[in-house]
């Protein structure tokens, strides 16, 4: 290997980890964050505060309420004979069940019962979950208590959830958090490392030194590819051993896909740095890139729903490709065609960014 380049990489690596706080940021915080977010966030809605208005004779509704609490999704709301709307508005309950006059039990006997559910829909996802939960609890309670067994529908679906049959939240979330952490470290580091030298003027010195432009660019960026890749085993260990995320695909394919991703983020970081004059700008530009990248990654909301006019934003998002790759390789074993396509897309992005950075450097240097 070119000795100039090697020296460059060595210097850059030493400089990056010289500050003990930087070592902490690079090698400890990813593990902490993985654990934190993996445990904390889930798609399942729980601890919904439920209130129900029923009198002593309304046995079915009382049973619905008690089963809801016992089932674990709901907790009792502390209420005292208030108007259901104000209860929810004042934030004392998330959902309230209101029976028809005379009680729900008698109304079902008459055959035209309407049970009203009021629910706080400021969180749309939670509101839908509440309705689904109560619907199924209600069906079971009526069946068990009143022996009203509705006939089975003639067409039934046998639903199989592939790859994550028990819908374990951490199995969804952990690959998402993994991809975000890989993005954050590499992107910020590369971007700021270059801009810092520009700001304090050492970059000018480099240019006047007898090194070629490609030596400067690769010397400044390859170390961050190394650092980014050194993060992979750390967070992968947490994913597999702490969160029991299955590792169904080949480890080598995963390393290859991650390498492509890290190269892409480092290359984009380099390209962004050519537009920034100081570190303040670099940090904002980093945010400008990373926040949309996270939003369009597919972890927060389905990419399928994005209107066609701005769908291209998601296609340009390296994080979306990497999250897709992680899920495909870890959970589905890795489909050769899918992995091939998306690794190629990442590689193309990396190459385009590198070429663009070269051009930018040439114009800014003259």
């Amino acid at each position, binding site marked *: 290997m070119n000795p100039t380049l090697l020296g460059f990489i060595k210097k850059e690596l030493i400089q990056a980890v010289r500050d003990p*706080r930087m070592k902490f940021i690079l090698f400890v915080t990813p593990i902490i*964050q993985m654990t934190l977010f993996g445990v904390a966030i889930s798609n399942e809605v*729980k601890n919904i505060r439920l209130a129900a208005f029923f009198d002593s004779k309304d046995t079915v509704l009382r049973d619905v309420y008690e089963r809801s609490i016992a089932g674990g999704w709901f907790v009792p709301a502390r209420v005292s004979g208030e108007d259901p709307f104000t209860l929810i508005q004042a934030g004392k309950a998330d959902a309230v069940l209101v029976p028809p006059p005379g009680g*729900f039990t008698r109304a079902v006997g008459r055959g035209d*019962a309407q049970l009203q559910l009021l629910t706080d829909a400021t969180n749309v*996802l939670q509101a839908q979950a509440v309705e689904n939960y109560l619907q199924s609890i209600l069906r079971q309670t009526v069946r068990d208590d009143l022996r009203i067994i509705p006939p089975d529908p003639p067409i039934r679906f046998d639903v199989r*959830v592939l790859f994550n049959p028990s819908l374990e939240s951490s199995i969804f979330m952990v690959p998402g958090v993994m991809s975000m952490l890989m993005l954050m470290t590499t992107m910020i580091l590369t971007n700021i490392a270059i801009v810092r030298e520009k700001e304090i003027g050492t970059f000018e010195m480099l240019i006047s030194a007898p090194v070629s432009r490609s030596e400067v660019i690769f010397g400044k960026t390859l170390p961050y590819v190394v650092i980014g890749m050194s993060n992979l085993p750390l967070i992968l260990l947490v994913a597999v051993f702490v969160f029991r995320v299955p590792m169904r695909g080949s480890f080598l394919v995963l390393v290859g896909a991650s390498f492509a991703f890290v190269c892409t983020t480092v290359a984009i970081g380099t390209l962004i740095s050519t537009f920034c004059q100081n570190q303040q700008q670099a940090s904002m530009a980093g945010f400008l890139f990373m*926040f949309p990248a996270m939003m369009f990654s597919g972890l927060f909301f389905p990419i*399928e729903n994005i209107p066609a006019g701005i769908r291209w934003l998601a296609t340009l998002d390296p994080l979306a490709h990497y999250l897709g790759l992680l899920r495909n390789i870890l959970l589905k074993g890795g489909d050769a065609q899918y992995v091939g396509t998306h690794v190629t897309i990442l590689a193309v992005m990396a190459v385009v960014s590198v070429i663009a950075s070269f051009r930018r450097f040439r114009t800014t240097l003259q």
Partner: protein
Amino acid sequence: MIRSFVWSRASAVARKEVFHILRDPFTLAFALVLPVVMILIYGTAIDFNVEGVALSVSDEDQSQSSRRLIDTFASSHYFFVQGAGSPAGADRDVTAERARAGLIIPPRFEKDLLAGRGAQAQVLLDGADNSTVGPVAGYLDSIQTIASKRIANFDPPQPYELRTRFLFNPELNSRWFVIPGLTVVVMAILSILLTALTVAREWENGSMELLLSTPVQPLEIIVGKLAPYAVLGILALLFVYVIARAVFGVPFVGNLAVFGLGCVLFLGTYLAQGLLISVVTRKQQIAMQFAFLSGLLPSNLLSGFIFPVTSMPVFFQYFTMILPARWFMTIARDTYLKGSRFLDMGGAFLALTFFCVAMILAATRRFKRDLEP
């Protein structure tokens, strides 16, 4: 060294900071334009009501009933039907991400149906994609009911009915849900970034030493540095508010003054947090790392923006209390959509006030300590 706080000195620091901002149009544009652009893009893009899910269908029955079942899926708008040669083909399509769900109709489907034995079709869901699997599973119930009615004329009387009233967002509009929350997330990280580098930059280029040799007090520096950015932040929030109301039609039923108070406290807290990072790290590179670590992921994932705090494990329901974004998330959603009274949100306001004061004091104290050799 207890000397009194002098406004003129604080305002001199503020004036200098204003010049600094004005000289760097990039920062100015970033602070004012970025939130607006983000709200416009995500307001358009984000929709939780999944539609057009690619469904890979393997029809081994090839009967009138099976075709009508497929048609029921297709006409629901929830699904986009594509053919798979065999049951294994449907499975492969889901594995290779060519489809999000599979439908396998077995050869005896119509026979079973006509014989009254009840016909079963298998549905495969992609458990690797959290954002679609839940909603799609929810649609299946209603498709089962509709298909039974259309194909087999099955429409039994229902002895009861659950009537749901979705309060504050009756049509379950994703935008109403997302935009107030998105404002909180964007402004949180933006505020930290605006201030995180300012003091660190002055340490690095030596102008801080200069500032310290003047009679300016730490609190005056902190307040002077915060004020201009707070004005920027309030302007940005105002723009976002106008867009949320005018472009996306998000209702605002609460008290605007209450919301405004929340905005000021929230901005103050995060701007001060940025300053604290700056004072502690003294190096822009590390300040930036800390800013992203403490701002980007926590405010996105732990504030209740999309994943409700109440659904988290008990430890995290308490742990997230140290996140100002969590409290402002409550205030933003409740004032926009619910019209909650100030007293109903007392806890959130108390917490925000506490964090705002605590952050400013912490930054000042740290600063003082740094001055002594």
